[in-house]
């Protein structure tokens, strides 16, 4: 099955998800073509095992721009007619992947975390209803399908590749949403949660702003660094430098102790590599228990209070 993978990169670095897409493409049989859309595509190395062909698409934009990327991929799809187009389920892809499917009349699914082939049909597995159920999707009648794959769901392809390299000229056109500059969201702060051995991480379950202090005190007593999930940052209770997850920091401490974090996909992607994960949550069905090594279904304040007494 012919697969077109679109490489992801930022600031001249190829992002890991690109190599995960190559692994997924291999599962569909291939041949696997990786398109590198960039100002200087040849400078980005995507020649890993499993890639049959690299297509360099030189564009003027210094970083991702949705119109530029969409036009390039549209032209590639028109010429190559791949059966499957694989993109990462990333912020860049969200800006043009679904549009591609809408314009070209292709099938589409986002946040796909499983793929299977049945004869010539692709079956995509993804979650619904807060990741509590999964569904198998089929794409009857579609000439092709655009799938955005969940980062970290496949292992990245590695090892030296032997891909052929060609160039493709993308048609010119306007760019209506233009990249100006990249800035670091998180202000410089006193702590780097990515460097901590022991994180005490709190989420929506703490309920009130006042309770942040309680856990700051507990973290200090435990010798842990306090980190948080997205809702705590959104509420303005802690700075984004403390946020664990896809839009925050990816962490791999020896111990990750999660209080009141249900485990959104984006959060799990940022901490599932931790050495030992311990979760305390009142909801026995919380997704965090799926990645935790140890879990307690309990009131987090009761457990926190008892912990305090032991310290």
């Amino acid at each position: 099955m012919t697969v077109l993978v679109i490489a992801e990169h930022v600031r001249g670095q190829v992002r890991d998800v690109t190599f995960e897409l190559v692994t997924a493409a291999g599962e569909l049989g291939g041949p696997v073509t990786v398109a590198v859309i960039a100002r200087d595509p040849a400078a980005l190395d995507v020649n890993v095992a499993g890639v049959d062909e690299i297509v360099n698409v030189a564009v003027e934009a210094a970083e991702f721009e949705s119109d530029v990327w969409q036009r390039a991929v549209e032209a590639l799809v028109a010429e190559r007619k791949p059966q499957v187009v694989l993109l990462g389920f990333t912020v860049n892809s969200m800006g043009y992947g679904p549009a591609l499917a809408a314009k070209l009349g292709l099938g589409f699914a986002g946040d796909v975390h499983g793929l299977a082939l049945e004869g010539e049909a692709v079956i995509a597995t993804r979650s619904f209803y807060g990741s509590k159920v999964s569904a198998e999707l089929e794409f009857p009648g579609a000439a092709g399908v655009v799938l955005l794959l969940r980062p970290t769901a496949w292992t990245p392809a590695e090892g030296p590749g032997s891909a052929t390299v060609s160039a493709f000229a993308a048609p010119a056109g306007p760019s209506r949403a233009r990249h100006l500059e990249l800035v670091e969201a998180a202000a410089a702060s006193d702590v780097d949660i990515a460097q901590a051995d022991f994180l005490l991480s709190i989420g929506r379950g703490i309920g009130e702003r006042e309770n942040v202090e309680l856990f700051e005190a507990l973290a200090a007593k435990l010798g842990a660094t306090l980190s948080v999930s997205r809702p705590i940052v959104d509420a303005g209770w802690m700075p984004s430098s403390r946020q664990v997850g896809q839009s925050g920091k990816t962490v791999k401490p020896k111990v990750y102790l999660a209080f009141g974090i249900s485990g959104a996909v984006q959060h799990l992607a940022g901490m599932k590599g931790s050495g030992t994960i311990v979760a305390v949550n009142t909801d026995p069905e919380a997704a965090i228990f799926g990645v935790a090594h140890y879990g307690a279904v309990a009131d987090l304040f009761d457990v926190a209070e008892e912990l305090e007494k032991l310290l």
Partner: protein
Amino acid sequence: MRVVVCVKQVSQLGDEVEFTGDGCDVDPDYLDSALNEWDGFAAEEALQLRERLGGEVVVVTCGGEESEQALRRALAMGADRAIRVEGAGRDPLSVGRALAEVVRAESPDLVLCGVQSSDSVQAATGTVLAELCDLPRVAVVTKVDYDHEARKAVVDRELEGGLVDRVEVDTPAVLTIQTGINQPRYANLRAIKQAEQVEIDVRTAAGGAEAYRVRRMFVPSKGEGAQLLKGSPAEIAGQLLELVRERLK
């Protein structure tokens, strides 16, 4: 100015689940519903733009009568008008197509959607809508600096890993709004009561191809799952502390 805000009444699954007879969806009896979290932020952003520049906020949803709850919530926050489109599928291509018919007719200066819906998480509808209306779009926006005279906006796009891409976008445009961009206002009781009386403009979607067909829905196997620490909170705390100390050695 006119801002269209697309909202969704999302479904939430509790502890238990049963599937429909065909096995392709969750039995609605097991679902609660609420305004999609992201859409509350989109509505707030639209209201703040109207407060600064005047004009109106039109809120649109796609779904059955029960989805009017999302519209009424946005009306209670302060939206001026509400439109519901029924008869479309629930996949992003069908929803985007249904919303596009409304957006084209409204000729808005800006269209705001939530980044994604909590029950489906595909982050696709806004981008499909933009394509079908031939509008520029920026996904996952955490800051909007809109210049009505210049027909442009400078917006922050939240990339992965704490990186932000500042983008200049021509308007009209579709922006998908990320949580945390503002603090959505609460509606007071009087506003909620008034919103219940507002007449909602109901339209019917034209058909078209769906993004996918659900073949089977199931509860995923949990794998090995977490080893449970049991007992009273004191006992749990004890085991937890022992475990932490052991693993930090």
